[in-house]
């Protein structure tokens, strides 16, 4: 760099330092507004992510009307999903991780909501393809939400575990927050139930879209 260039750069810097285009006072006001807007924005985000939807309360005993196969020789795990819910991708990821950690083969069904009146192919989504790709998982379509009604499922991502006798062992979500992968107490409680270990609770909040519209979905607003 030549001396002339340096002098020019240094000179312009001096002039800029002498007459900043934004005074310190204005910058302080801008910084205060910035911090306030960030506090509000992240507050809204955290509130949204941490607010569970309605999860219903699946029956204590496996409903006799259900057409879903229940394993009479072992546990059966159901996960109710909305095929287009972006939050449920995290639940599917956690399901895949959980099944990889389960030592014995677990009868697992991913129950895909198919509301009445949707066009053909409406449930053919990437989420459902991902569920198909998990080894040992059976994907079933739930036409008009009949199975969801039988199991009182409201929110997408609800996992329900029944033992060989059809007794409910666990129900709830397996993500720590809305659409967020990672460790969660729901997954730990489900693993505890699978391994017969004691857990503090047998349920956890569900974070996902409403499986159906209507009154039941009202409890699930915000997804």
């Amino acid at each position: 760099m030549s001396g002339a260039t340096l002098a020019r750069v240094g000179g312009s810097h001096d002039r800029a330092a002498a007459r900043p285009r934004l005074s310190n006072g204005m910058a302080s006001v801008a910084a205060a507004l910035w911090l306030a807007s960030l506090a509000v924005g992240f507050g809204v985000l955290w509130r949204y992510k941490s607010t569970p939807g309605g999860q219903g309360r699946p029956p204590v005993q496996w409903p006799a009307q259900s057409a879903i196969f229940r394993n009479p020789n072992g546990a059966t795990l159901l996960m109710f999903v909305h095929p287009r819910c972006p939050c449920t991708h995290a639940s599917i990821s956690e399901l895949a991780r959980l099944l990889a950690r389960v030592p014995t083969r677990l009868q697992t069904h991913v129950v895909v909501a198919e509301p009445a009146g949707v066009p053909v192919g409406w449930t053919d989504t990437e989420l459902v393809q991902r569920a198909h790709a998990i080894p040992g998982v059976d994907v079933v379509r739930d036409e008009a939400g009949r199975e969801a009604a039988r199991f009182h499922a409201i929110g997408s991502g609800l996992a329900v575990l029944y033992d060989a006798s059809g007794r409910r062992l666990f129900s709830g979500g397996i993500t720590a927050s809305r659409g967020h992968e990672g460790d969660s107490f729901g997954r730990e409680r489900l693993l505890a139930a699978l391994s017969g270990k004691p857990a503090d609770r047998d349920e956890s909040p569900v974070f996902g879209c409403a499986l159906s519209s209507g009154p039941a979905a009202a409890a699930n607003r915000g997804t």
Partner: protein
Amino acid sequence: MNTTDDQENVVDTIVRRAEERFQAHRNQILRATDRLFAWLMAGQWIFGILVALTFSPYAWEGKTQSIHMHVWIAIFLGAAISSLPIALALLRPGWIVTRHVVAAGQMLWSALLIHLTGGRIETHFHVFGSLGFLAAYRDWPVLVTATAVVATDHLIRGLVWPESVYGIVNPEWWRFLEHAFWVVFAISILMVMCVRSLKEMRLIAERGAELEALSESEWRKTSVLERDKMEAAVS
């Protein structure tokens, strides 16, 4: 006596000029890096909106869809995060506050992108990539600010909403330090590189100043000789 004074004057001139060259070079780097981050902040905003539109465009209630909260968050919170760093980079480039605000904004972008991508472990790489970018300032305190923002984010969320950070409800109080440790691990070498880079810049500035002094001395000698020749020719 006069020769000694001349030598001292020359040395003083070289030292002063070296400092001027160093400060000008450093200021040029700081301003250029501020401009770079202004573009990056705008780019991340667009990227964040695209991520939200791609991965979570709609929320659903049965077959009824509505715009997903992530889209609004990406638009408005993303704009908020980028606004002050861009404004300062354009209006006060080179100012010390500007680069620290940029560092804080960059780390907040990491947090937002992690949320928008559903906590994907791959998105956490944005934190470490950003620290590398921030090292372009060659100003190690900027990296400390970035680390402090990460640690504060984990500390606050760990206290208010622990499962969002650690996946469990009652983590040990020091768990945020474990996460921050990996950031500290990354910046430790970057800080050493910043200090070394500044030393090299000083060395370059000193050599440049010495060359300038030498060049000026040669020019003076040549001028005197030329003037003597002209005076001799005239007489």
